[in-house]
């Protein structure tokens, strides 16, 4: 049976994401900095995978494939982090509580192993969602 764990998700800036963004949205630096989900070692155990495995992260909005990595900035078990960018935003709920601010931090996601699923490029992850990706 496929294993699935539920985590509380936050999306934030990281310096690698900042550097990557300024290097260009299509740069490898940006891709490497943002296509990760940082998780606590305990959550790796719960999910039963090694670090640096691709996972499918699903929220109420949709799913995205990312590489699960161990946190550099320490998290508590149950809390996960994706650097901000089009990949993170693929699953951020757009609901704003009438404040203009979507739910960038503090929304539930399911994480499951997807070791062989490919990670899309920055532009394709957006185009795919918008139905503009020519397959």
């Amino acid at each position, binding site marked *: 049976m496929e294993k699935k764990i539920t985590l509380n998700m*936050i999306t934030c800036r990281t310096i690698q994401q*900042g550097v990557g963004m300024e*290097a260009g*949205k299509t740069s490898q630096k940006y891709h490497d900095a943002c296509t990760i989900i940082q998780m606590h070692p305990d959550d790796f155990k719960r999910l039963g995978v090694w670090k640096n495995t691709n996972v499918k992260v699903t929220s109420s909005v949709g799913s995205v494939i990312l590489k699960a990595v161990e946190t550099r900035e320490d998290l508590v078990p149950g809390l996960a982090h994706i650097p901000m960018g089009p990949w993170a935003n693929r699953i*951020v709920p757009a609901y*704003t509580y009438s404040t*203009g601010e979507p739910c960038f931090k*503090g929304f539930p996601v399911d994480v499951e192993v997807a070791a062989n699923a490919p990670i899309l490029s920055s532009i394709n992850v957006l185009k795919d969602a*918008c139905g503009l990706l020519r397959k």
Partner: protein
Amino acid sequence: MPKDVTDVICPFCGTLCDDLVVTVSDDNKTILGVKNACAIGAEKFNHQRLPGRVTRPRMRQADGSFKEITYDEAIDWTAKMLVKSRKTLMYGWASTSCQAMSIGHEIAEKVGAIVDNCATVCHGSSLIAIEDVGVPSCTLGEVKNRADRVIFWGCNPAHAHPRHMSRYSIFPRGFFTVKGHKGRKIYCVDCRYTDTAKCADEFIQVQQGYDYELLNAFRTAARGEVLPDTVGGVPKEKIYEIAEDLKQGRFIIIFFGMGLTHSMGRNHNIDIAINLTRDLNDFTKCAIMAMRGHWNVTGSGQVLGWQYGFPFAVDLSRRDQARHQTGETTSVDLLNRSEVEACFYIATDPGAHFPVDAMISSSKKPTVTIDPHIQCTTEISDIHIPVAMVGVEVGGCAYRMDNVPIETRKVVDPPEGMLTDEELLTKINHRVDELLLAGGA
């Protein structure tokens, strides 16, 4: 001979470091080196000289590919889109100059658009809170010269504002703070043990989404009232102890970031942090400041402020009045509700930073994106108009996170024939005038 341009203002974040030295080639075309900048700022200058930069407008075709068009064609298309649409979202502005914004607002007023800036997904919550309860604050030099208690709450300058701690908040020695870091007590409140937390004397780990409750507890403790045993995972003894220590400070500064603005309750988290600041002023001196991220997003709020009286999400769609209601005239809400007919993006990349549902809605509308580089939004727009990089290839006014304006410097020429935001917007404005005079598109 390469030459050094000094006192250059970094065009990346709201810290607006203004001591960069940029070495440029003799012909003013190439950046050879950047000194004093953080990794992100340096990368911004480096990007200027990357090969393959787009230098002419592009139009997306039916098959999804782009073809090059002239500036005149792009301007005409844009003006026609603006004149035709009954309600247009004009979003972005954070990476351009105040002078350019001013022209943009003139266009918006004529064509009936909503002008919104990046605060809408960033410190918009903070602006709502300030609208509700005000904000006791100060300039960054005050922090450097006086602060002996520094609190970073839900912000991570080590990553988002890399030179903030060395220029203003932790390490510098100031007039009354001759001991620098040693004379300051640094607190960090976050749900993660961030790299900023690692620089702090004390880290308070709050359960994600419990900032409002914890701030309420600090206020309650400061008034000497009873508390439950733990609040947001923090024991009450710790809360009392810190509240007491803050009262002993001479000058307290609270810096806060997305950890408050993006979490549950949004504006209320800041609202109550401001109220705590206010309360502490009954005992000592205390200030609070938003860690504004996107370079000149503060400037957009200022220009909108003096021209229309609202800091963001300014609805000029009726053309004869200005209105503002966060939750209604904010970009993500407008897109969620499909309340606009066309999108005009400038100096930002909502495709990378808006939740996907908003961008799906956006992708179904005529869209023009003005940005120096290819980015996510340009690739789903009908037209991409490249422009000179503000703060690198053209000067202009930008506002720092503490609202101090600085005239930024041009260090190199833009690629041959490339327009600046100001030039481009002026041309669009003229074309809009012509179309309106002729009675529509």
